């Protein structure tokens, strides 16, 4: 049976359909999880997608983290379920305390919409297990607040535990230690600013998101 992936939809999400499409293209079943429902509907993996949940008012993710769906996602994550936050989803996961640190406005105060190169620095996470260490992937970014920041102590822990799974080859936004994506200590929750779901076909300019999403699908199948 194909693994089932739930994609959370908040008011203001705008990458949820891309995520559904990418999962289906890779052979998974995908469904929307409405933010107002306090359940993950028995899915095998969760994607918190990009966009501007609740208009990014106050701070990106600050309001979305109180959604009933996020309570269910937090429980799912605590029980070991694979969870990936992309872009605004990464911001939501940090606000929810499922990942450490915070995402600040980009250095230079520019909204960035371009394709960047990412280096895989750990293959021990639900999003990078099918990639190879040192692989350089071309994946789009599309954000204003992707400048990862945290305390020096937290950064030292991330480095020591190899929780920094993806780094920018050329830092576009001022992110600490070139961080593009991190995982939690248990390695089942990953957040990243780039959009792997927009890099799954040559028609989109790159297929380099495929190994990342395939990793998630394999994890989902394993926990199904």
């Amino acid at each position, binding site marked *: 049976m194909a693994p089932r992936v739930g994609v959370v939809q908040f008011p203001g999400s705008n990458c949820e359909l891309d995520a559904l499409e990418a999962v289906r293209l890779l052979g998974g079943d995908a469904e929307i999880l409405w933010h107002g429902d306090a359940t993950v509907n028995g899915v095998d993996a969760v994607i918190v997608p990009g966009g501007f949940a609740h208009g990014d008012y*106050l*701070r990106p993710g600050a309001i979305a983290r*109180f959604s009933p769906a996020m309570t269910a996602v937090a429980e799912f994550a605590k029980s070991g379920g694979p969870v990936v936050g992309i872009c605004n989803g990464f911001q939501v996961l940090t606000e929810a305390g499922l990942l*450490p640190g*915070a995402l*600040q406005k*980009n250095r230079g*105060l520019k909204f960035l919409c371009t394709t960047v190169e990412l280096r895989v620095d750990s293959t021990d996470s639900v999003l990078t297990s099918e990639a190879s260490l040192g692989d350089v992937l071309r994946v789009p970014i599309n954000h204003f607040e992707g400048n990862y920041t945290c305390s020096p102590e937290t950064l030292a822990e991330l480095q020591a535990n190899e929780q920094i799974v993806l780094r920018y080859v050329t830092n576009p936004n001022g992110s600490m230690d070139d961080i593009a994506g991190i995982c939690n200590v248990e390695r089942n929750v990953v957040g990243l600013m780039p959009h792997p779901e927009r890099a799954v076909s040559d028609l989109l300019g790159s297929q380099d998101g495929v190994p990342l999403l395939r990793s998630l699908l394999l994890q989902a199948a394993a926990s199904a």
Partner: protein
Amino acid sequence: MLFSVQVEVSLREGVADPQGATIERSLPHLGFDGVKGVRVGKSIRFDLEAADQAAAEAEVADLCQRFLTNPVIEDSVITVTEGASA
């Protein structure tokens, strides 16, 4: 009792402030010299119903910690005064 609340949110000491840095860099071009240490924050005001001053302050402190600020990068200064805010 009704209390008027003002919360000043600012980035914590040592956290880079891209907005402040951009403003500071642009000031000399506008002829404003000698401005240093620009930091950008936000101000949030509201009225709060609470039993007394201490209860109001405790409530606002909790609200700040859990919602109005992100303690990873932000600090807040809270002012609670008796009476509605005009």
